[in-house]
């Protein structure tokens, strides 16, 4: 059972999200409206997953993100999904910097519309997965960059974008209408081109995405 602490300052959305999570078997142990209350609620309930808005009171800037980062610093491995209205690489990069980037998600609020996928994403993060919103990744891949990523072929970029959204090789193969073996080959090429040593750690996939997000032009 994944117990969730939810932080969102919009009352309607907070209640909507809480209802959604309960309905899909993710009990919301606390639903709060600002960053300080989030920190208190996590201390009190020790949840299995934190879902937080990035822009929240008191300053209505990135309070939610900063609270999430301090929570993860205090409790390594605490899964956190940050929701935002904005496609911002800086926020995603900050999240991935915390605790090796495992068990974090950075999602546009648009994702809640596709209810089942959204809940699956939350479960994935709670299980230690890393998920960056496809829009963020797509934006990074759109422009031909001037770093190692430039060596990736168009198909490899597609595969990398899918990897970033947490898809398995099988799922990527289905989405791109290619064989799973082909996807495996692409993944191997991507990791080689980005200079990531092949090993059995599934975290390689995250590292590939990290290479993107940390690129400082």
């Amino acid at each position, binding site marked *: 059972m994944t117990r969730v602490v939810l932080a969102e300052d919009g009352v309607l959305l907070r209640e909507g999200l809480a209802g959604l999570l309960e309905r899909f078997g993710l009990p919301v142990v606390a639903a709060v409206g600002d960053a300080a209350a989030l920190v208190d609620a996590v201390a009190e309930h020790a949840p299995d997953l934190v879902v937080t808005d990035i822009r929240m009171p008191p300053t209505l*800037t990135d309070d939610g993100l900063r609270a999430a980062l301090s929570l993860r610093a205090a409790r390594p491995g605490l899964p956190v999904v940050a929701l935002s209205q904005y496609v911002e690489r800086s926020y995603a990069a900050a999240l991935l910097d915390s605790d090796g980037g495992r068990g974090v998600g950075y999602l546009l*609020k*648009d994702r809640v519309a596709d209810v089942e996928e959204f809940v699956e994403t939350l479960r994935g993060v709670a299980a230690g997965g890393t998920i960056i919103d496809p829009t963020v990744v797509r934006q990074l891949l759109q422009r031909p960059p001037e770093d190692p990523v430039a060596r990736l072929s168009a198909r490899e970029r597609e595969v990398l974008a899918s990897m970033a959204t947490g898809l398995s090789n099988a799922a990527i193969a289905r989405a791109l209408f290619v064989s799973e073996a082909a996807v495996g080959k692409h993944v191997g090429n991507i990791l080689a081109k980005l200079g990531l040593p092949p090993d059995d750690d599934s975290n390689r996939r995250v590292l590939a995405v990290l290479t993107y997000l940390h690129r400082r032009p």
Partner: protein
Amino acid sequence: MDDNALTALRRRNYLFTSWPWRSLLYVASTPVIALLVWPLALPVVPLVALLVSLTRESTVDTGTAFVISGVSIACYLVAAPLLALPLAALERHRLRLVRPEPVRAGHRVPPSTGPWSWLVTRYTEAATWRAVGYGTLLAAAAPVFSLFALGWVMFAVALLLAPSIVSGANPIHLVFIEVSTPAEAWPWTPLGLAMVVTTPYVTGLTAWVHGLVAAALLNEPATSARLHTELVEVSRSRARLVDGFEAERRRIERDLHDGAQQRLVGLTLQLGLAKLDVPGDSPAAVTVAKAHEEAKALMAELRDLIAGIHPQVLTDLGLPAALRELADRTALPVTVRSDLGERPATHVESTAYFVVAEALTNTVRHGRATQAWVRAYREKGQLIVEVTDDGQGGARPDLGTGLTGLADRAATAGGRMLLSSPAGGPTVVRIELPWTTA
């Protein structure tokens, strides 16, 4: 009262107005005042000596004369304002005799109290050095004119008195005439009379010319002073407008974000749930699915709209992060280098941001560029932002409103925009904004 001495001079009743007397008072008091400030004429002396030593065989060595001239001019520049400033104040009062309109000093107000601040202000403003110029002119030239005027009056009086005082034993020598008997003297009397009658005109004219020179140097023209005040007010009100505009943008962004956007997310969530609850084969399923798609599209549109009004990352993380996000969104490889240290004031940040955004849009649209570079750094109290591309160049501000708009935007923040875009490229847009902190 007449506008000035010249119009008064043209009038028939000139001699019966106060003008001749005021002119006389002005002209007569000039040598007295010139005497008080005679040291101001000193730099003329070594210069004359220098000229003499250069033009003639002289005992004074030319090199020595140069050194002496240099040293005395340096001393003069340091000390002259101290004498010229009170002189200018006095002369402004005296000037009212022949120029009834108000005289403005045009001195700036020192930024803080204390003698040092006063000295720095005075020594660095044009009004002071115009006063020094006037003082030097007065001290050097006034004696010459005074002697001429004195000579004129004495000559006229001598001609008038000649018939009564001349005798064979007492011949009168007047420069180019010599009379020894009253009979010889009488023919000159009309000239003397004419000279006496014209004296008020001569003094009037002298006073007018002097007043003209004095006003040119000592009077801050009224229009210039007023324009200056108005310009200060205009730039202040422009700054207020920009701040107000900026605040309004952020308010609109906040309202949309906290209101419409949140409710729209809630709505799509509800529609997503409804889609799960409606049986797939019912007629409602299609409608709900359609509404769901519409709401999702609307959400994406609204997000773009809000990001265009004011990017959240600019507020949260500042200009460098916002420029990187901007580079990410641009359909060209953009290299961003920024080195700012602390954050400047909000309006400086957003002006720089929107100018870069517009410049990059231009690059994509018109520049035929394959790459762009953005640099932001701080230099000499300014925020400098440069956008360079490797496009075809030839961008001209007069060919569209885009570049003019950028220049206006920079100007409202008290800065300026520079454009270099030779045919064949590269195009460089440079914005310089005064670095202020919030």
